[in-house]
């Protein structure tokens, strides 16, 4: 607890100095179903308070201006009594854990995102017109994420699915190491659009510890770049239908041509075992 340490000089860096809604209301302008928030120098709790206030006041499209590093944008927006979902446009650089626990809303980032996009997201959609950092879609359990450019380490780490809830992550560029690490479910598509002809994906340890879900990969990888827990398979008709649907959605977001991408060869990576470490602790 921070409070018990206060006499030793420990300061509350998350909630210290957070202003009340009344003090911040001038940052919010609402016009019918549209709202605008000037996020300059606000801390993340203040931004989320204002988003919630705008949503409760009937706004359905909320534009955040001057965002620069504030975390957890779009979380804490569970609105059971409300009709319809919210669309949040972020300019320009949101902080870590964008859309954490996202409850069915839509977030569009007009710039680059940082680490932890869609952390444990439940449902909805995140579209990033730029690149994203590490652990994109960590523990994601529903909804869709589209990243135009590349992503950092450990994208899709421990993504999961359960019955009808199947999360989808589509990445236009390439990824760094431990792509799909400990993946337990969901659909991940890596397009490699920014690789040069003949250039392999750079990631090593792809799918290490993977025990569920599927990765579709366009572009070359050498076998040693894959984790020991994945096998490489050719696509069947069901796979092609899935790719057609989600690559189609991806290209509509970023105004690209789906046909030329889909014409290229994809491989399918799937776990060879549902319990790769099941024997480690067994006698």
């Amino acid at each position, binding site marked *: *607890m921070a409070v*018990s*340490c206060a006499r*030793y*000089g*420990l*300061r509350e*860096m*998350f909630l210290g100095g957070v202003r009340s809604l009344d003090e911040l209301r001038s940052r919010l302008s609402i016009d019918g179903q549209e709202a605008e928030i000037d996020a300059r120098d606000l801390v*993340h709790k203040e931004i989320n308070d204002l988003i919630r206030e705008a949503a409760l006041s009937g706004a359905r499209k909320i534009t955040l201006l001057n965002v*620069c*590093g504030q*975390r957890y944008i779009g979380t804490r927006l569970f609105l059971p009594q409300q009709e319809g979902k919210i669309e949040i446009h972020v300019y*320009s*650089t*949101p*902080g*870590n854990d964008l859309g954490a626990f996202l409850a069915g809303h839509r977030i569009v980032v007009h710039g*680059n995102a*940082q*680490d932890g996009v869609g952390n444990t997201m439940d449902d909805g959609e995140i579209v990033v017109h730029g*690149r994203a*950092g*590490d652990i994109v879609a960590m523990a994601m359990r529903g909804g869709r994420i589209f990243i135009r*450019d*590349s*992503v*950092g*380490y450990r994208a899709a780490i421990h993504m999961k699915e359960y019955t009808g809830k199947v999360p989808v992550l589509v990445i236009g*560029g*390439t*990824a*760094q*190491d*431990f792509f799909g690490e400990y993946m337990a479910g969901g659909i991940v598509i890596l397009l490699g659009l920014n690789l040069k002809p003949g250039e392999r994906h*750079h990631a*090593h340890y792809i799918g290490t510890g993977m025990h569920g879900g599927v990765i579709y990969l366009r572009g070359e990888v*050498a076998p*040693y770049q894959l984790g020991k827990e994945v096998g490489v398979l050719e696509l069947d008709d069901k796979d092609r239908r899935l790719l057609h649907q989600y690559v189609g959605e991806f290209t509509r977001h970023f105004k690209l041509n789906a046909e030329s991408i889909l014409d290229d060869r994809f491989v399918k990576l799937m776990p060879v075992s549902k319990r790769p470490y099941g024997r480690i602790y067994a006698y």
Partner: protein
Amino acid sequence: MQPQISERYLPEKDSQACGLFGVMNTAGERFGGEMAINAMVNMKVRGNGLGGGFAIYGLYPEYRDYYALHIMFERHQLGAKEIVDEFLADHFHVVYDEEIPTNKKATVLNPPVVWRYFVSPRQQLEEENNLSDDEFVVEKVMYINTRIDGAYVFSSGKDMGVFKGVGFPEEIADYFMLDRLYKGYIWTAHSRFPTNTPGWWGGAHPFSILDWTVVHNGEISSYGTNRRYLEMFGYYCTLYTDTEVMAYAVDLLMRRQGLPIEVVSRIFAAPMWDIIEHMEPERRELYKTLRMAYAPLLMNGPFTVIVAHHNEMFGLTDRIRLRPITAAAAGDFVFLSSEEASIRAVAPRLDLAWTPPGGEPVVARLHTRDHLASLARAV
């Protein structure tokens, strides 16, 4: 009997992250502290007010030929200053010294006295004549840190200095009036979130020996092995934190052994054996040799560091990048940071922003574009 006053602060265990920032003008133009300070304010949630600090290069051009010693004295042991003064007079020509000016209105807790001395070595003993000036200074710094209670050397390089303490970085900057008094061509900064070791004035980052400084986010779990190896070369860890080994290791490898960072990064963050197995034969031999010759300097555990010395600043993460780093460039400025947003907060118009893979250094050197070399495998 007076109760002993402790100048250390023990927070309850709480995992977060530190914030790192570095900015260099590769044309060598000196600039003020606004960018470094404001970038740290932008990343305030990465620290908890238990440590903040700055290293500045190109700091003392009027004394550029002298070693600038920044020395901290704990207030309940001010006798240490007399001992240090005597020690310095015995071993150095002290051309100028003064208390580092501070803003008495700044909100910091229990600040120690911090003094600066501009000195040149005065080698008297026969065995000291064999030492280079740098070796002589390292030896004397180690003596002060290990033998004189209550005195710790913050920095000991030429034309540079470290300012640090317990507080948020902007509070430390306000206390030492960094934005008003100083200019430099490299600024590195740190916001601390101590987890395993106490937050105290000497334990704040940057860590420094001669003109090498290190700011660090993470945990060097190989600390014990690294420390024992460094002791064989006369480096003694006294500051109760893992980061210290990194400063001494760069001094050993880069200054004393003359290795470039492009090689040193493969020692600190050596690739995994199974990756080495798939390299071209010549590279494979080099990487194998480095791993075997320098095994005790492998830095294990999650880390990102920004290291600087005269004319050079570089950023490096552990080999599987368990801590973040972002690099960016705008004109002659090169930036390294824990977060892209903190760079954009102080330089909205960037030419480039990129993230290198784990273990791949981003090296900014004076009058070069060497930092662009790290773009090849970046995202």
